């Protein structure tokens, strides 16, 4: 039975074109994001207030432990702003990474039955995370203004680029691990572990100079290769740096803007393309593995 390929209109079903398909299904994406937000705090009295409360408490704990007990408060000017601008970045990262890497397994029931562009799920987690990111940013801005924030255009750009790096990097990791998670549920635990380590592996609770002073040179370079470190430093540069009174004492890592930032963007992009490739090569097997 030899069949000639038809000339018109037919296409193989279930061919995902990645982000293009997600964009083509904006309406569905919006509904999924709405759903996630609606059910996140379902049945709670405080509702969306939890998005403010949780980072607030987290901040307080770190502030008391690191700032007061370990005296970083005296070592770093405006330590509260320094701390919170880093926490905000890490929260965005861990929310996107954590939820996106569970998204395919969590929506297994649906994926097994109906075809829809599967990248909708990790991408929807990114958008949901942004909605919880905004209130935290608002608190941070308030703190900044109280401490005399006077940013220039460079600082604002740094924040924007930092957000971009985090989004791309966390989405890429999320897509990578959500694919692993379909085949090995160990991935979920690895994700939790990575999230825990990542807070300490970037200058959120301490300063980057401590890494350079206490450890070997090569550790410092590896440390700076991490896009998270770069993003956190960009946030410090954007939010904390302009609030300090003596900018000459405090300095951002050398070549942050000219060297490390472009490198972080490239790293994240490469990772994203690899994740996208892996995801798309494996998604045909999701339905039977779930």
């Amino acid at each position: 039975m030899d069949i000639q390929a038809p000339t018109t209109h037919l296409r193989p079903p279930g061919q995902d074109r990645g982000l293009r398909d997600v964009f083509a299904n904006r309406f569905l994406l919006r509904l999924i994001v709405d759903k996630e937000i609606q059910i996140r705090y379902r049945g709670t009295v405080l509702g969306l207030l939890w998005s403010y409360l949780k980072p607030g408490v987290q901040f307080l704990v770190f502030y008391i432990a690191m700032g007061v007990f370990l005296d970083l408060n005296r070592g770093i000017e405006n330590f509260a702003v320094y701390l919170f601008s880093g926490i905000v970045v890490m929260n965005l990262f861990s929310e996107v990474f954590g939820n996106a890497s569970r998204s395919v397994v969590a929506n297994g029931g649906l994926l097994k039955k109906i075809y829809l562009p599967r990248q909708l799920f990790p991408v929807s987690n990114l958008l949901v995370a942004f909605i919880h990111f905004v209130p935290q940013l608002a608190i941070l801005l308030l703190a900044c203004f109280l401490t005399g924030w006077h940013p220039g255009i460079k600082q604002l750009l740094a924040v924007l680029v930092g957000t971009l790096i985090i989004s791309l990097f966390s989405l890429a990791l999320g897509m990578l691990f959500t694919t692993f998670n379909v085949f090995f549920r160990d991935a979920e635990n690895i994700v939790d572990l990575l999230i825990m380590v990542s807070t300490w592996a970037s200058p959120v609770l301490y300063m980057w100079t401590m890494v350079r002073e206490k450890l070997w040179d090569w550790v410092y370079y590896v440390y700076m290769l991490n896009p998270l470190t770069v993003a956190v430093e960009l946030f410090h540069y954007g939010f904390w740096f302009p609030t300090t009174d003596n900018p000459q004492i405090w300095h951002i890592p050398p070549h942050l803007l000219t060297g490390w930032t472009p490198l972080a963007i490239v790293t994240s992009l490469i990772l994203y393309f690899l994740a996208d490739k892996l995801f798309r090569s494996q998604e045909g097997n999701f339905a039977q593995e779930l």
Partner: protein
Amino acid sequence: MSSSTTRHTPDRTEADLAIRVSHMTKEFVLRHTRSMKEAFVWLVKGRKGDLTAKFTALNDVSFDIYDGETVALLGFNGSGKSTTLKMISGVMNPDSGEILTREKVAGLIEVGAGFHPDLTGRDNVYLNGAILGMTKEEIDAKFDDIVAFSEIAEFIDTEVKFYSSGMYLRLAFSVAIHTDPEVFLVDEILSVGDEPFQKKCIGRIKDLVRRGKTLVVVSHDLGLVMDICERGIVMDHGTKVFDGNVYGAVAHMRNQPEEDVRREHEEGLARALEDKRRKREWQAREAAERGEQFVPQYDPDLDGPLAG
């Protein structure tokens, strides 16, 4: 394997093709290691032994479905018919072979799969409609029809978790039946709700058939399949064993001569039609006795299809 002889046969061309399945083969992995430890040990030991056991779910299946055809996929449990449907919808990809379909293939596969219990009926209609490929405008336009068809209008703003399972299925089916794909896939969902609602659903599907919609149905209800479909494909252990008109397919399933199946079914249809006609006559007489004007309820079997 007998060849298909349905009424569209002579003037079919490539342009009328709705689905083309050629040499579709699919293997499933039965025993799968779920931990990295096992996989790692297996790798270290030089990949000795098979980590998995395989099972051929579909073996070199080929068929073409043309626009306007109504095709039943028949077979006993585990014969591969639902897997075939999943391949056509794109949920799974074949290991080898090729599947081509029209752009919009969707329908009544496991209705309610996209429902979320914590959302209201209204939100679920939108979410599920979008999952089934409808645009916002389409859902807006059809929303009232969807709710009316489901007959649960008063609960539409209640969260779905408070619905009874019948109400839930009604709403889910109602959304699915209002989508307008080029090819409708129907997987064993005709057992929705109570009998009146079931009849309404089947009537709706017959209506789609009359309007020339391409339909692929998986069902074990052979009588219903003969009502709806004109072509039948019988699968057995992952291979296609029969492809022809639906009576032949049912005959193959029942191990009966085709003429008997056809005769029995046609007798059944004639009887049902006669019953309906008699019931209507009786209603008309009752009405006349009461001196009322009798307006018969619309029935496509008696009155022919509606316009549009």
